[in-house]
């Protein structure tokens, strides 16, 4: 596992305590796993994602990420409807390890309530939480 100082934390996303990130672009929110989460999981071999059209509430489990080491559920940072899933992960789940904020995104969501994003942490708050 890397030291926190060796990990990459994007400035442009909001983080959850479960180590997901959310990024708003126009009216769609993209969701993925933080660099800390992928590093903890180790080499990811399978990503289970929901279907387009599935509707979730903030905090719902929306899929799972399986690494050589463990299986980990992923939880939704905000409520909404799935409008796109990252199909590239089916053949290349390692994208979550290699490029967690760009090519390794998990799902895109049409949010119910954008204000829910305000409950998430910015980079500084997330780093504070990680450093305990």
């Amino acid at each position, binding site marked *: *596992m890397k030291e926190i100082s060796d990990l990459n934390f994007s400035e442009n996303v909001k983080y959850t305590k479960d180590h997901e990130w959310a990024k708003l672009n126009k009216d769609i929110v993209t969701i993925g796993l933080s660099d800390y989460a992928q590093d903890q999981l*180790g*080499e990811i*071999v*399978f990503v289970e994602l929901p279907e387009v059209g599935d509707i979730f509430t903030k905090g719902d*489990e929306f899929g*799972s990420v*399986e690494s*050589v*080491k*463990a*299986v980990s559920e992923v939880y939704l940072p905000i409520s909404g409807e799935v409008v796109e899933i990252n199909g590239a992960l089916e053949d290349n789940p*390692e994208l979550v390890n290699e490029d967690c904020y760009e090519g390794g995104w998990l799902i895109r969501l049409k949010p119910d309530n954008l204000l829910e994003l305000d409950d998430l942490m910015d980079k500084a708050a997330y780093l504070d939480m990680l450093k305990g």
Partner: protein
Amino acid sequence: MNTQLKTTSLHQWHTDAGANMADFGGFDMPLWYETGVKNEHLAVLKSAGIFDTSHMACIFVGGKDAFALLNYCFTRQLSSLEPGRCVYGAFLDKQGRCIDDAIVYKFSDTRFMVCVNAGMGGVIAKHLGSQKQAMDLEISDLSGKVAKMDIQGKNSAKILSRLIKNPGLVFGKMPYFSFKGSLSHGALSEGTNQEGVTLLDGTPVLLSRSGYTGEFGFEIFLDPAVILSLWKDTLIAGVPFGITACGLGARDSLRTGACLPLSHQDIGPWKFSNHPWEFALPYTLDKKGFTKNFLGAKALAPSKDDNFIYPFVGQTLRKVTAGDTTRVLDETRENIGRVLSCATDMGIGLLGNKIVSINTPGLPLDLKITGISCGFVMVSKPLEPGAKLTLNEGKRSIDVTIATDIRPDRTARMKLDTFI
């Protein structure tokens, strides 16, 4: 790092290489390097990998009654074991429970080496001592005094031939589970009276044609002071073959696919019978009795409350967590046991209903092999191969099938000539 953990002579190399380290048997060991478990696993199946296995412990047992003691304490029949041969088995307590598994190496009728798991050198040495009574022999726990590295995979001999003197002679007549050579000092310096094995600089090593991956290869025992240079030399000599340093993650997935048990996980403080490793017991041909009396034998008789251990294979690479959090459900959805091990063998896939390996000849070109989960379950009733189970962990379930073997087309037992 927890300061309580022990380290091997290669510890600095592992951390310099960026390995993910974790406690294994009280040692701070590499789980995987930057290469990743999948590539490390596949490297052994396709070419070669090296493993630091210095956490394992060696015990020397020598003297007039060395054979008698070992043959009483070990589950294999040692009377037919020739010098220069080694054999896999287990040490049981009086109740027939497994204390640890081991490989016993025979140098001569009065000199044996026992290789056990991490942290078990003292335990097994003490156990043997407790059974010694008036016997004339010496037991030395060599924990920390002998280092070991394994080179595994079909190009192992080609790579080693660049690192040892007289490889042609060394590799001649070296069947599976045989060994040659000795160590430079101490109890193991006398060897087997066969030709020695030395590195190019004259350093003696003990070379054993064995391993824990199911693939062709060797375990190399040597002085801890020289393992770092051999490790580095092996990585250099192996460059043309794409050799890869492998951590305990790949070691675990390779051994699970090879249907080999992990001590204290698949075998342990429960009755050592009704499992896929009954070849490690000295059964008579009709399997109605044993060919010798040994410690724990009486307790192995079948009884009403017996459990049964079976290998299983999943349908995809998806796995579950081993241990008490996962239920083992039969076709009536009754929970009948627990998962002992579950790993993904990244080198196997399904062709129709048949498991194939990336080393299976004649595979269709468009077949994509992404791995299949596999492992061992302990259940409360006998099952037939082909029986279907569901392994359930919270919301997650995988369907698995009881099997007799897992990864096909393994290379461990193939003739050495095939690989030179």
